[in-house]
C-alpha cells in the first residue's frame, strides 16, 4: 500500500514537472518570437511515464476489486433476510428448556 502510494505521488510530481517545463518552453518561444506548435518531445516522454505511473498507482492502491456479476458464485443470493419486523414469539421454540445459567449480571 505504501509503495503504490509513493509511486502515485511520484507520477503526479512528474506530470506537474511536465506542465511546468511546457510553460517555461512557451515563455522561451515568446522571447524568441516563434510559434508554439506543441510541447517538446521530452515533455511527451515525461507525460507518458507520468500517465503509466499514475494509472498503476490508481489500480493497486484502493485494494481488491469486488465482483459485480449477479450470477457469479460469490454473489449468488442464498437467502432473503428474515422478516424481523413481523417476528412472532409463540413458536415451537418456546417449549424448549431454557438454559438457566444465562443471566445478566448487573
Amino acid at each position, binding site marked *: 500500500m505504501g509503495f503504490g502510494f509513493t509511486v502515485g505521488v511520484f507520477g503526479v510530481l512528474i506530470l506537474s514537472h511536465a506542465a511546468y517545463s511546457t510553460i517555461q518552453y512557451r515563455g522561451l518561444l515568446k522571447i524568441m518570437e516563434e510559434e508554439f506548435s506543441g510541447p517538446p518531445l521530452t515533455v511527451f516522454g515525461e507525460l507518458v511515464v507520468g500517465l503509466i505511473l499514475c494509472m498503476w498507482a490508481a489500480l493497486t492502491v484502493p485494494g481488491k476489486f469486488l465482483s459485480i*456479476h*449477479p*450470477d*457469479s*458464485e*460469490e*454473489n*449468488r*443470493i*442464498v*437467502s*432473503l*433476510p*428474515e*422478516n*424481523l*419486523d*413481523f*417476528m*412472532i*414469539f*409463540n413458536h415451537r*421454540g*418456546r417449549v*424448549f428448556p*431454557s*438454559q438457566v445459567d*444465562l*443471566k*445478566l*449480571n*448487573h
Partner: protein
Amino acid sequence: MVTKTEESQLSRLESQVDNGGGGAWDFLCLVRKLKVRRSDKVLKHGLSILNDPKKRSALGPHEWTLYEQVAIAAMDCQSLEVAKDCIKILRRRFPGSKRVGRLEGMLLEAKGSLPEAEKAYLSFLEENPFDQVVHKRMIAMVKAQGDITRAIGLINKYLETFMADHDAWRELAELYNSLQMYKQAAFCYEELILSQPTNPLYHLTYADVLYTIGGLENLQMAKKYYASTINLTGGKNRRALFGVCLCTSAIAQLSKGRNKEDKDGTHLQSLAATALEKDYKQRAPDKLQLLSSALKSLRVSS
C-alpha cells in the same frame, strides 16, 4: 439479501466464536447487518460480552444497540428475565425513549399478555399515527393470535399508507399463500418484483404461484418467469430448470388440439433438460437414471 460470500463469512465467524476464539462482536455486527435470526447464538455471545465489564466499556456507544439486540434475542429464546433486565438498563439510560417503549411492548407480547401489549401499542399510535414499526408489531400480534384474515386486513390498511414497504408486501404474500388465495399472492409478488427486479428468488416464487394457479395463460407467464430466473442466476438454479420442463409439458398437454408454436417450446425444454442432466452428472451421478426417466416421461406426454 444474503449472498454466498456473506453466508460463508457468517458461518466461519460462528464456528470461530463457538470454538472459543474471539470475534464475538464482529459476529453480532454481521448478524445485525444481514438480518438473520440466530437468537440462541446472539443471546449466548451477547451475554458473554455484556457480563464482562471490560469488554462492555470497549464497545463505547454501541453498547446500547447490543443491549437491544440481546433483549430481542432473549425474548425469542424465551429467557424473559434476561430481556427484562436489559430493558430495565436501557430504560434507566434513555428515560423517555419510544424505542425502549416498543421493546417493552414486545416483552409483553413475548410473555403472552397480548391485550396489554395491544393497549400499549395503541397508545403509541395515538401519539404518532405514522409509526411504521408499531403498526408492524400490531400486525405480528394479530398473526400470533392466529387470526390471519384480520392480519391481512390490517396489512392492507398499512400498505395503503406505506406502499413502498417491501417487507410488508412479502409478509402479505406469505399470508395469502397460507390461505391459498393465490391470485392475490401473485399480485403481491408482482409488487415485490417491481421493487427489486434483480432478485431471482422473487421471480422464482412468482413463477411457482402462477404454475399453481394453472390455466394456459398463467402457465405461459410462469414459463417466462422461470426463464428470467435462469437468466438472472446464470443457469444455476435447478428449480427454475425443472420449472421450465414442467411448464412446457403442461402447456403442450393443454393445447393438444390446437396447433400453436411447438418448436420454441420444445427447444427451451430440451436446453433445460440438457443443463439438468449435466448438473446431475456432476453432482449426483447415482440419481442421473431417475432424472433421465422423469424427463423422458415429461417429453413423451407432450
